[in-house]
């Protein structure tokens, strides 16, 4: 059978393009990272209510993304949500013990994310520590309920 170099080349290129496209979908679109896991460290935070927070949500500090939510579990001891955060390595040893974590919403209907703000405590959070000072997600129904009961008591 006669072979055609250009055709073989074309098919090779086609399959290569498929692989490159898949890599693009992985890295650029779904935000997978090729960097080694040693470049991040882990913190935990317990929230009374996480609202619509999902794994892989952003963790920001002053609006800058500094990490992601790794997992969300139910803490069966306290019956609240235990959220594990994975933060960039350059923040390790920089965050004070009284750092607060709040669940915020981007825009009115946007996704929910965690905002960190630093306190003044000289003691520092290490890998695996837990953030004490947390602020739960705002749940619209609760806000309305509060508003209505305030109106009633007035």
């Amino acid at each position, binding site marked *: *059978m006669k*072979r055609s170099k250009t*055709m*073989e080349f*074309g*098919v090779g*290129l*086609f*399959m290569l*393009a*498929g692989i490159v*496209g*898949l890599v*693009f*979908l*992985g890295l*650029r*679109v*779904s*935000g*997978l990272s090729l960097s080694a896991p040693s470049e991040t460290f882990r913190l935990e935070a317990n929230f009374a209510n996480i609202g619509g927070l999902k794994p*892989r*949500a*952003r963790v920001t500090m002053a609006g800058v*993304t500094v990490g*992601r939510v790794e997992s969300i579990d139910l803490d069966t001891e306290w019956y609240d949500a235990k959220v594990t955060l994975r933060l960039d390595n350059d923040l390790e040893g920089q965050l004070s013990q009284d750092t607060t974590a709040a669940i915020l919403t*981007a*825009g*009115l*209907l*946007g*996704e929910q*994310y965690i905002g960190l703000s630093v306190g003044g405590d000289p003691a520092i959070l290490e890998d695996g520590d837990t953030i004490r000072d947390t602020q739960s997600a705002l749940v619209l129904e609760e806000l309305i309920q509060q508003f209505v009961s305030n109106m009633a008591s007035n």
Partner: protein
Amino acid sequence: MQSRFQQGVDQIARLGRKGCDVMEALGRAGLFLAQSAVGVPSREGWYLWLRQMHFVGVLSLAIVLVSGLFIGMVLALQGYTILVDFGAEQALGQMVALSLLRELAPVVAALLFAGRAGSALTAEIGLMKATEQLTSMEMIGVDPLRRVIAPRLWAGFVALPILTVGFGVVGIWGGYLVGVEWLGVFEGSYWSNMQASVSFVSDVGNGIIKSLVFAVVVTWIAVFQGYDLVPTSEGISRATTRTVVYSSLAVLGLDFVLTAVMFGGL
């Protein structure tokens, strides 16, 4: 009165016969798939496969990529006008990427593939049958299922998922062009919102699984219609039409089922 009744009986009998015909055709098609797709390819088989990859894959690339680009651009344009009402235009990237990866890339690429490659496969195999090439191959002692059908089936199975990935990538890029470059959505939020909401396994992965299923169904229909047709000019043109109609319906129907299973919480 008697004749009315008789007519009704005839109708029901016709329905039953039709049902039997359909079941028989399905059985034939299943047997056909099993006989041709299973088996170890020879050295030459690889080369035949490569040639079909060129035919169904590389030659379909242009139409798939151009369609992907336009669909991404339209998605961004439409999505922006809706999202901007809620002040949520930074979620544009997320919307474009999710609709493309979960739905539009697998489905539209499969429909285009059925029109471009599927119909060509049916016509080509039909012509080989009409000109007795398949019979003469059998008389030479070569099984046409292995020699003619198998490479085409496998080329289709591999090519469509690749085309789907290409469709998705180009579509997301088209959305970027319109959303970020033209409408002025902030570039960082286009990508970061996308990255926050798209999961590689459940969105990209499920999209590719969908396209694999579509690839099997569309190529199977196309090749079987070609192999099973009435070997006349009219038969070929009918079979070509059938290929496009059946595979489009199968893709859309299966898409609903797959979506329900993958994303509908079934």
